[in-house]
């Protein structure tokens, strides 16, 4: 799986980016979520994969016994997931508000207030 998971995560990245490059607001949300998911999985995959052994100390032991998964990437991942959730929720609401205000789901039509002018 060490070999295959990166492939999957890579495709998630690619799909996420592809959707973000879309001009449809809703697809952009999907893209953001996919990208976030891919980022989290990246962290997980890169942090090392251990089958089965959780980072929880057995009730008969006082210290963790190998093999156990590296808890650090997991902890980072948890934090990142939560942060990502907050930001994604905000993004979703934002996009909904944009849609409501501009009455358009086409990002290109938002260009009317072009920033460079």
């Amino acid at each position, binding site marked *: 799986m060490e070999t295959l998971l990166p492939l999957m995560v890579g495709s998630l990245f690619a799909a996420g980016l592809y959707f973000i490059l879309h001009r449809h607001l809703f697809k952009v949300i999907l893209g953001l979520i996919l*990208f976030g998911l891919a980022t989290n999985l990246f962290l997980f995959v890169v942090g090392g994969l251990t089958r089965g052994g959780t980072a929880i100390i057995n009730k008969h032991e006082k210290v963790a016994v190998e093999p156990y998964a590296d808890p650090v990437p997991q902890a*980072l991942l948890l934090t990142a997931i939560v942060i990502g959730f907050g*930001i994604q929720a*905000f993004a979703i609401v*934002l*996009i909904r508000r944009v849609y409501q205000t*501009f009455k358009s789901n086409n990002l290109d039509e938002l260009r009317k207030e072009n920033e460079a*002018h």
Partner: protein
Amino acid sequence: MPSDLLLLLPLLIPLYGALLCLMFWQKEKWQAAMAGLAQVAWLAGSAFLLQRVWVQDVVSTQIGNWPAPYGITLVADVFSALLLLAGAVIGLAVYLFSLQGLDVTRRRFGYYPLLLLLQMGVSGVCLTGDLFNLYVWFEVLLICCFALLSLGSTKGQLEGTLKYVTINFLASGLLLTGVGVVYSLFGSLNLAELAVLVRQPTHPNLPLLSMASIFFLVGFGVKSAIFPLFFWLPASYHTPPIAISAFIAGLITKVGIYTFIRLFTLIFVSDLGFLLPLLAILSGLTMLVGVIGAAAQTDFKKILSFHIISQIGYMLMGLAIYTPLAIAGSIFFIVHNILVKTNLFLISGVVAERYRTFSLKKLGDVYLEQPILALLFLVSALSLAGTPPLSGFWGKLMLAKAGLTAGNYILVATSLCVSLVTLFSMTKIWNEVFWKPKAQSLEKKLTRAPVNLFRLRQLYLPVILLLVFILFIGVCARPLVQLSERAANGLLHIENYTETVLTNNNTRK
């Protein structure tokens, strides 16, 4: 005061302030009072911290008493304390401005707590000594920016925030992946330990460090709006009310640059032969593109927004030259720019408060109608353009001198040309907003807006406050120059930093 507490105050004060604001959610006046208290306390805390690092060079504490590479480190050196202090000053100024310069609805909808939490994020970024923790604080800062930028949900704000959110989300993703890469390759998240590890020439993963650095280069590059990653900035910074954009524009990109400088002097130092020329090119292009963008604008706020980018180029320039003087120049420039940029935004806000527009075409005659404001603007603008002996000059001089000494002639030439165009833009604003007579057709419409002179005067207060600081660091440049040099020295000679962090004695029991 113990160093532990000093390091924590910049985090805890805004947090508790924000909490109090949340508790008084229904009472805007109380919120304002709490926020004001927190601002003053933050300023005091930062000042104390700076004083402490001036004496001790580096102070650090271990969160939760866990020893250094295992627990999270908070660490302050002159650089971080300096940035914090500058942030605290503009925080106070923006707060004062918002009392009269921001509509009451926005104030009721969480402006104060958001601003405070944003400041907490800034403190976190400046003080943390841990790579992942840095990411976390950056996210705190970002989400506060999101919320503040969109606060009010006007059309422009929404569109700007959408771009801001999307691009910064991508950048955060890259940062997070970068953190993962660094952790896997080097097995640590503590900046000080990483700094030691990457300086071991035998470390097996050293060749991959520059690959890892790309994630941070692009990630923090986006956050600090360097070329070609800056697009979100001109798209969003001009959209919210001034009390919001002034703080964000003044501080946040500089925090990005702060991190940039911190990481690329502390950790990503194994491949400077590749990075420095790259940074030099990027900084030159950043300056140029920013200034060209500004030259093309005809809106007060948009001009200022594009100039942020161009000045980011200057800050990056010091890093690209990578000598003590150059980095000191960058640091000086950062501090100067935080104050001046905020002040210019605030001034644009005062102008708009009276005339209800930011358009250069519609404005005019402010020179006659608000002479004090004109003076305040002129000094700030010239400071930005680097006219001696105002604050901008010193940074420019240090950078130019360092660049010429180090042989980066093209970069210096670019920076000087850019500074000329900056002068052009600033005087363009002066010509159009202050000198030019108002168009007759618009005159009636504009003056019909009722003017509360008392309110207007109160808006001058923060501008004057900032101007005092600007004049101080211009006319009495020596303290800041010394501080910058100390800071730069600390950045280039990290032994003190790593030693303080890794042998911190407040560890377990």
